[in-house]
């Protein structure tokens, strides 16, 4: 039971607990907070594997920007607790077990996959090498995503503007 294994199980438990809280929460703001917990736990898991730059980017972009956007929208729209619905009586009794079965089956086949049970290289990722790859090999997708973000900003502003 090395420290790495203990840390993995703690972070995995936090991540799964956050995901279950996301589903079980009745108010969207609690779901948003649970998702932030999942993202921070995943950042911890990336750190455990040595990808520290990706962990920092995950917290800064996902946790510090995207989820702030979600929280703002929930606050602005004044989203309340979810109301009871009479859509389908059978849904929780058939749907939920089927969903959990899907989950377990995915996990089983991933566990059985032979070629990826290695432990991989130890030590942190060299940020310089990652940056080299990003700016030399993947420079075209990089510029394309910056254009994509620009279009998204313009689109969001145009969509959400009030007609005056």
């Amino acid at each position, binding site marked *: 039971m090395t420290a790495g294994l203990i840390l993995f199980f703690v972070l995995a438990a936090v991540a799964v607990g956050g995901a279950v809280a996301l589903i079980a929460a009745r108010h969207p703001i609690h779901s*948003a907070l649970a998702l932030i917990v999942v993202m921070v736990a995943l950042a911890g898991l990336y750190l455990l594997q040595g990808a520290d730059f990706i962990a920092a980017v995950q917290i800064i972009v996902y946790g510090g920007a995207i989820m702030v956007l979600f929280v703002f929208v929930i606050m602005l729209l004044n989203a309340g607790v979810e109301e009871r619905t009479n859509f389908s009586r059978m849904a929780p009794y058939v749907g939920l077990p089927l969903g959990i079965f899907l*989950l377990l089956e995915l996990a089983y086949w991933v566990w059985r996959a032979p070629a990826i049970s290695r432990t991989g290289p130890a030590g942190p990722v060299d940020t310089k090498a990652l940056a080299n790859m990003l700016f030399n090999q993947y420079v075209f997708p990089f510029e394309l995503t910056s254009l994509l973000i620009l279009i998204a900003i313009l689109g969001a502003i145009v969509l959400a503007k009030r007609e005056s």
Partner: protein
Amino acid sequence: MVPSSYYLVLGAVLFGLGVIGFVVKRNIITIFMAIELMLNAVNLAFVTASRASGQLDGLVYVFFVIVVAAAEAAVGLAIIILVARNRQTLNVEHLDLLKN
């Protein structure tokens, strides 16, 4: 060290929970958050595969997934604001104008 299959199983579990959340919940913002959970599970699989094989390409893909998820969240939330403003509801069961 932690074997890679542990991380992949965790990714599968999180993805499954995201699917369950997407199907079960009725608030449109919560459904969107379940989509983000699925994207995060996929990111975990990418990082694990990248570290297991020693190539850095997986991390570059993670970077792009995060960026595209940010753009998608911005536009998606703008659409949600429009929907809430026009239909005064956030419950997907009441957004059924195309039905029948």
